[in-house]
Each structure stands twice: as structure tokens, then as C-alpha cells.
């Protein structure tokens, strides 16, 4: 090999190595990219995890309440595999709500049927996915982890409204929560945001 080609080889190799590192980084960048993409498109029915605020439709500008058209909202409670809690949707498992109307309060119910203290995380999902961004949660038990002592039970509050911008063609929205056991995660996570069970018991 002449010196010239040797230099060329070295240059090519280093450039390609840099490209490899870049693509490794891109793999990780897919995580936040996916998050943003899901939020924009409602892919997977992901809902926002930050509390929304409801402003009464006092202003004359749109959006206003769409009094005469209502959307059916259904509530589901699902246990993930091996989750021993009793997890129940509100008594009224279905409501007809006018988009833009004042927030609604509901309670889910959870009962730790196991004989150990546990921490759970509820993960919400909205179907159809593109309705997710119009279902605005002001308060939700899914915002924090929920700790329950063995045998204890609790009521889980939810407060939400439907945005008046909800597209016309959506007639039914299903809000489902899946409950996961995160006791191990919480134990290993020093900054666990779980509150003691007594704070939530009723």
C-alpha cells in the first residue's frame, strides 16, 4: 500500500466508525422521538401524563360547549398478568358527555388481595388513539404510583373533561387502565413517588 492509499484507508475507517457511533446514538434517540410521535398522532392511545387545566368556556371565542352532541365515554379496568389486586372501574362504566362540558369526577376501586404490601402503577390507554389528546385529565391516580398494604383497599380518583375540539366523527371513547405491579421497581427506586397507603385509604 502506498502512503496515499494508507491515509485514505485510515480516513475512511475513522469516518465510518464515527457514523457507527452516531447510529448507536440514533437508536437511543428513537425513544424520545417515538414519545413525541405518539403524542402528536395519538399512536397507542397514549395520554398526556401531566395534569390538564379546565377553563370554563366563559370567553366568547370558540371553543364552547357542544351542548347538544354528546360522546359516549367508557371506562375499563384491567389487571396485567400476575397482578393480584382487585381493580374495578367506576359503578357507572359508561357516560354520555358533551365535549367542553365541566369536568367529571369518578372513582376507580382497588383492593390488594395479596398478603404483601405492594406498589402499583396504572397505565392509561385511550381508544381510538386519535381521541387521546382530547381526553384531558385534571387529576388522575395514574399520575403517581399507588401503594397499598396487604389486604388494604382504596378509592382512586379521576377528574377529566372532553375537549370541545374533539372531532365530530368520534362517537365513542374508551379509557382503559391497566394495573402493573411495580413493587420491585419502587423498592429499587429511591425517589419513588409513592405515598404511604394511609394517605389514600378511605
Amino acid at each position, binding site marked *: 500500500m502506498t502512503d496515499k492509499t494508507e491515509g485514505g484507508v485510515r480516513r475512511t475507517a475513522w469516518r465510518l466508525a464515527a*457514523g457507527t457511533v452516531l447510529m448507536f446514538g440514533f*437508536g437511543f434517540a428513537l*425513544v424520545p422521538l417515538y414519545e413525541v410521535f405518539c403524542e402528536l398522532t395519538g399512536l397507542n392511545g397514549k395520554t398526556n401524563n401531566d395534569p390538564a387545566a379546565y377553563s370554563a368556556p366563559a370567553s366568547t371565542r370558540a371553543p364552547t360547549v357542544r351542548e347538544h352532541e354528546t360522546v359516549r365515554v367508557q371506562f375499563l379496568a384491567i389487571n396485567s398478568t400476575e397482578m393480584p389486586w382487585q381493580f374495578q372501574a367506576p359503578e357507572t362504566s359508561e357516560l354520555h358527555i358533551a365535549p367542553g362540558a365541566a369536568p367529571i369526577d369518578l372513582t376507580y376501586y382497588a383492593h390488594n388481595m395479596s398478603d404483601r404490601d405492594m406498589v402499583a402503577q396504572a397505565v392509561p390507554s385511550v381508544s381510538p388513539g386519535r381521541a387521546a389528546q382530547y381526553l384531558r385529565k385534571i387529576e388522575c391516580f395514574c399520575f403517581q404510583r399507588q401503594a397499598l398494604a396487604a389486604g388494604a383497599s382504596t378509592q382512586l380518583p379521576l377528574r377529566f373533561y372532553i375537549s370541545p375540539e374533539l372531532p365530530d366523527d368520534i362517537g365513542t371513547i374508551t379509557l382503559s387502565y391497566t394495573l402493573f405491579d411495580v413493587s420491585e421497581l419502587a423498592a429499587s427506586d429511591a425517589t419513588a413517588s409513592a405515598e404511604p397507603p394511609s394517605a389514600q385509604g378511605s
Partner: protein
Amino acid sequence: MSADHHHGPASGITRWLFTTNHKDIGTLYLFFAMMMAFLGGAMAMLIRAELFEPGLQLVEPNFFNQMTTMHGLIMVFGFVMPAFVGFANWQLPMMIGAPDMALPRLNNWSFWILPFAFSILVSTLFMEGGGPNFGWTFYAPLSTTYAPPSVTYFIFAVHLLGMSSILGAINIIATIMNLRAPGMDYMKMPMFVWTWFITAFLLLLVMPVLAGAVTMMLMDIHFGTSFFQAAGGGDPVLFQHVFWFFGHPEVYIIILPAFGIVSQIIPTFSRKPLFGYTSMVYATAAIAIMSTLVWAHHMFTVGMPLVGELFFMYTTMLIAVPTGVKIFNWISTMWRGSMTFEAPMLFSIAFVVLFSIGGFSGLMMAIAPADFQYHDTYFIVAHFHYVLVPGAVFGVFAGVYYWLPKWTGRMYDERLGQLHFWLTFIGANLTFFPQHFVGLAGMPRRIPDYALQFADFNAISSVGAFLFGTSQLVFVVILVRVLKDKASGRLEGAVGERAWEGVEGLEWTLPSPPPYHSFTTPPSIR
């Protein structure tokens, strides 16, 4: 003494351990690939034996799952990919008029990582809880929350073999960009060089993403992160996106070098130059670029917005256009050529025909609404085996028969070659064609037991598999004979520079077998 050292191989085992010679490393890659092919093939035999009739006869379901997983991993990463890197090592320097690969020491390293990676991977089978049982696609949380403890070793093995591929790809690109003989412009490079050039870029694009995916798995399993755990705010579907961002281009990484090999062989045995060389180059590049935009066609059923389904459906179907260009170019090359049908040509023609069948079933699955029925059935298994076996594997056989006389200086036994081809051809079709039918009828993939109505086609499939498997022993006999002839120095069957009538290309201007260092002085290109 030092002159000696530079002109011939060292002797004994150290020749292979410390070699930096592209031919030695190519040989190592090819032998390693062959061993892995027989290991993965043995697993396939076990799978087909269990599926010969309904019910559980031979293995437990969990072990069956380990077999399907390992069969896929070994065939993709242990057999087909190393085999094509072996071809690249042997052929690229000879085809572009270079003395060796650009980074010979790196070359040694990228090979020797592989045996370690696969020792680790295979050893997981003997660990507590068994080896990976979550399918070769290792979807989270199957491969994280519900994985056997050996998954950590699996992750490490994937890291290692990814590193090997990346180093190999860097070497190949550096060689092609810097070591071409004077006058060997990019648009004069043989098709095999072109397809490997593009494949190497694809490897660099997606292997690091695979490394990222397994790293995230590792962190989820051991460091409490939640990339793919819904409970902690992660998303299992994200795993599928990251995996298939690697996984779809991977299928082209596997098939493009085979395209290249066939593009060398068909002109030779048609005694005509390749039809539409320029369009071949652009079609290959187009396939590679488009392959990075179609990944979610593996995930039509996860619940995507309609626009998503449509986007991935149309981009997937669009790939059929450049692929069609290639198929038509191969057929046009054969058109009115004075064709002969030696083993490499037979494998190449079978490649064109059977790969097209696999391509068509792929088009069927690209239709999102239809895919809801095909998803996770044996129809999928039939499809990807049609593109991988008569596709990639026939490409490997074709290439070995075509260049073996060059590599060894001895012609293989053509009668045995023909026998090997026909047994393989019948065996492969008998194995995989009936799988279309059971798949359409609803038989799910990755199950050790199945409903009674699938029994007949599964029995046929298993018989085909045993035929396909055992006929590979003919290939071993052919190889052993050639190597024996070479070792004994017998002159019968010795070939000259041009082992095939009228064959074109720089590698055929070298003696057979070629000298240890290919072109110490650059050849002149007309």
C-alpha cells in the same frame, strides 16, 4: 527469511489464528458458516421431526421454542451473514485488483469474535432455565420480564456478533473506496462488489441500532430502567419499532450479496454481458434506501393509525419496483444467450424463480388488511424461507460452485453438483411450499403441536426437510473431494486461469489457485 514470510502462509494452527490474509480469513468465514449451517440445520430437523405429526412426541414446548429461536439466530447471524462476508473477503480484493483487504488486522479480529459470540449463544442452551425461547425477534417483554436468566448471555452474544459485522463492513467499504486498481471506476465495478458496497453501508446503518435495542433490554433487566416496560412508563411496542428498524434492512443485508453473486454467474453461463448494468446498480441502491422506510409492515396488527398502515403498505409495495428491475434484467441477460446449465447456473436460475415466489408472497403481506390474516401464521414462515433458502442459501451454493475452481484450482465433480442441486431444489420446495397452505388455513407459527387438519401438509413438509437436510451431505462430499485433490496435487481436474468458458473479470486473470497476495502490482483496466 522475511521475504519468505511475505509470500506464503505460515504453517500450523497459528496460520489461522493470526492470519491477516484475505483468502485465509475468507476461508475461515466460509468454514465457520458451514459449521453453523449444519448446527442450525440440525435444529431445523428436530423442529420438523416434532411437527411431523400432531401432538407432542419428542421435545417439550419450552425446548421447542428454544430450537425455533436458536435456529433463526444461528442461520441468520451464524450462517448466511458470515458466508457472504467470506465471499467478500475472498473475492473483493481479486475483483477490484487489490493486494488484500484495506484493514487486514481488523479483518482477523472481526472473524475471531464470531466463534466466541456463538459459543456464548449456544452455551445458553445448557444453562439453568434454558437458552433464548422468545423467537429470533426477541420481542420485549418476552425477552425481558419473562426471559430465562440466560438472556444476559444472549445480549452479550448479540453485542459481539454486531461488533464483528460492523468491523467487517468498515473494512469492506475502506477496501472498495481506496484500493481499486487504477481505472476501476465505480461504474466499472462488478455487480458483486457493488452489492457488497451497498450492503456494508446498510450494516453500518442498522447494526448499531440493534446494539442499542439489546442495550436497552439489558438496562431494563438489570438497571431498573423502563424502556420497554409499560409499568414504568415505557412501551413494548417501541421495542418492535426499534427492532424492525434493524430487522427489515437486515433482510436486504442477507439478500443483496446473493443478488451480486447471481449477477456474476448468469452472464457467464449465458455468454452475454449483464443486461442493464447501470439500472442494476441504481436498483440495488434504491432497494437499500427504501428498506429503511418500511419496517412497520411487520407490525400492522399492533394498532397503528390508518395513515401509518397506508404509508408502510405503499412504501413496501414500492420496493417491488427496483426488485422487479433486477429480476427482468437477469431474465433479459439469459434471453437468447447460449446458455449452459452447470451447478452454479442451476442454483442461480432457481434463485431467480423461487426468490420471485417469495417476493410475491411478500407483496401479499404488504397489503395491510390481508396481513391481519397472515400475521404470525405459517404463511409468514413459508414466505421468509422462500426468500432466505432459495434466495440467500442458493446464492451461497451458486457462489461456492462458481468460484471453488478459482479458489482451489480444481474443478468439482459436476455430476455430484447436479445431484446436489436437484435434491436441494426438490427438498426445499417440498419443505416450504405446503407451509403456504397451512398458513392460509390458520396454523400459527412457533408451536410444537397443531390441529389435526394440518397434519398431511406438515408431514409432507417434514419429509421435504429431511430430504433437504440429508442432501447437504452431497455438498460436503463434493468439497472434501476437491480439497483432497488439491492437497494431493493430482492434476486431473486442474483448471487454468479462466475456469469457465469465456468468463470475464479480474479474478479470472489470476492463476487458479491465486497467489497468497492477489495483485501485488495493480492490473491495468481496459
